């Protein structure tokens, strides 16, 4: 079995995304040689990665100016076929999930998505991943070479390194022909109202709020304590709060002094956006909710009972 691990460098708008360094850290701990693969318009970003890998393989050209799974896949199928790594690490991100499964089919390789831990096993890899929004973990075995492991974002803590990796230029040839997909551009969802990233106290509302008619309760509570309201995905999907106050990997990342999570179970996408808060207090009915793993203080109860009782106590304190 090959002893090298390829890590796909994820970058956007001329910056290497954090998840790349998280994956490189995890790859270094597997032992063996770590090769970062950078597909980009040019190799300008390679210097950001050399300290973290034994080698940086640069695949450059106008076809790689923007992420497009089609060009990436065409190049990677050839590159992986040549290098024969034991594993390929790809971020379980918007880019990665657009690429990983089809790449695995093209390579006839086994893939495990949303990995939170992985180790070399007797034959192949043992990979742990979340299920049921983090309530369970599943261990899978991948026996193919390579194993494709899609790594959860904000899961591994990136560590500094000084490997001083060499740069290898790898020619992708003509990977543009026959393109069925076309990148047009990026759009940023505008923030028109309150910027939750600037708030010192944030109250986050989750699925536990149940109905739109319950929103005034938490709005009043937020007003009591001078907080701004934010939400996890289901509340925004339902249209009860605007997209610009969504906390999580596809929304905003916030670091307030105080974050109060009401009825939020704590799917990793949400946790990625709020775990940097100085103090986190969570109220949830389910004692096993993953939110209690990141919260500093927890109350196991129904938010619809806790919030009115709490408001009464706050009124007493203020009197």
């Amino acid at each position: 079995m090959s002893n090298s691990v390829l890590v796909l460098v994820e970058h956007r708008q001329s910056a290497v995304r954090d998840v790349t360094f998280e994956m490189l850290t995890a790859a270094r701990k597997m032992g063996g040689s770590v090769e970062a693969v950078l597909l980009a318009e040019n190799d300008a970003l390679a210097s950001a990665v050399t300290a973290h890998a034994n080698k940086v393989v640069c695949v450059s050209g106008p076809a790689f100016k923007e992420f497009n799974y089609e060009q990436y896949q065409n190049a990677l199928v050839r590159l992986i076929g040549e290098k024969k790594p034991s594993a390929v690490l790809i971020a379980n991100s918007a880019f990665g999930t657009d690429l990983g499964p089809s790449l695995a089919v093209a390579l006839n390789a086994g893939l495990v998505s949303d990995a939170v831990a992985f180790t070399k096993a007797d034959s192949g890899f043992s990979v742990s991943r979340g299920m049921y929004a983090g309530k369970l973990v599943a261990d899978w075995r991948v026996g193919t070479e390579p194993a494709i492991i899609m790594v959860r974002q904000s899961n591994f803590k990136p560590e500094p390194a000084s490997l001083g990796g060499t740069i290898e230029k790898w020619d992708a040839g003509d990977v543009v022909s026959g393109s069925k997909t076309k990148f047009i551009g990026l759009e940023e969802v505008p923030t028109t109202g309150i910027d939750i990233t600037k708030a010192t106290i944030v109250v986050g509302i989750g699925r536990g709020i149940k109905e739109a008619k319950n929103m005034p309760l938490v709005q009043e509570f937020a007003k009591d304590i001078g907080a701004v309201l934010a939400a996890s995905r289901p509340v925004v999907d339902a249209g009860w709060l605007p997209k610009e106050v969504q906390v999580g990997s596809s929304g905003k990342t916030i670091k307030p002094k105080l974050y109060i999570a009401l009825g939020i179970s704590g799917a990793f996408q949400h946790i990625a956006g709020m775990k940097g808060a100085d103090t986190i207090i969570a109220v949830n009915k389910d004692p096993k909710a993953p939110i209690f793993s990141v919260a500093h203080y927890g109350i196991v109860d129904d938010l619809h009972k806790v919030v009115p009782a709490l408001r009464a106590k706050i009124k007493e304190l203020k009197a």
Partner: protein
Amino acid sequence: MEIAVCLKRVPDTAEADVKVDASGKDIVRDKLAFTINEADNYALEEALLAKEKDSANVTLVSVGAKESEEVLRMGLAKGATAAARIDSAGLGDIDGIGTARVLAAWFKDKKFDLIFTGAIASDDGNSQVGPALAELLGLPHAAYVTKLEVQAGKLAVKRELEGGFLEVKELSTPAVVTIQTGGNTPRYASIMGIKRAGAKPIEQAAAAGAESKTSLIKVYVPEIVGAAQMIEGTLDEKAGKMAALLKEKGAV
């Protein structure tokens, strides 16, 4: 226009206590409520909107046991044209790509302009089926789409990226698109729709092409690490302690 939507019946575990069963590879299911996978419901709505706008036919397909017909009937009640169930008996613990192989075998000799799936399943959280299915069928794909527009011979989509960004791209058709939640407002079935759906036939198909390159070892409840300090007591006591804590943190 012919649109297919892949639907999955999943347990509603958002607020449920999830327990591992005796096999160590699955959860105890008998006390759980089941429903259509959330993202699939948005995919279904996207297809129904296209049906109304461009007079498309909407065919539903689900890989599952007999009970999966519940979600197919729900989709028919909302206005889908036809439905098929691919029997999952004997498939075992296949991964998302394994499910895509089963779907690809069914789709192989059929003609669709668009195939929709949900972007992620709420049970396994895999996000694998759509892009893998596209590759197996030799079609382009886009994952995590929140907006799409059918144009002449092509499809314009917006994909959801991290940090509040959208990626705008175009695909040639036919294509496979995985739909993320939040881009539309899924409708409810009408009473009349439910009555009509009850009488509609559901095509029964056998699973073919199953193959999994990965194997499930076990599932388990994760250890809670760095656990929160729990505020205990009666409701009144908990509220009192939390109010004091908020005061200490400067919120009161």
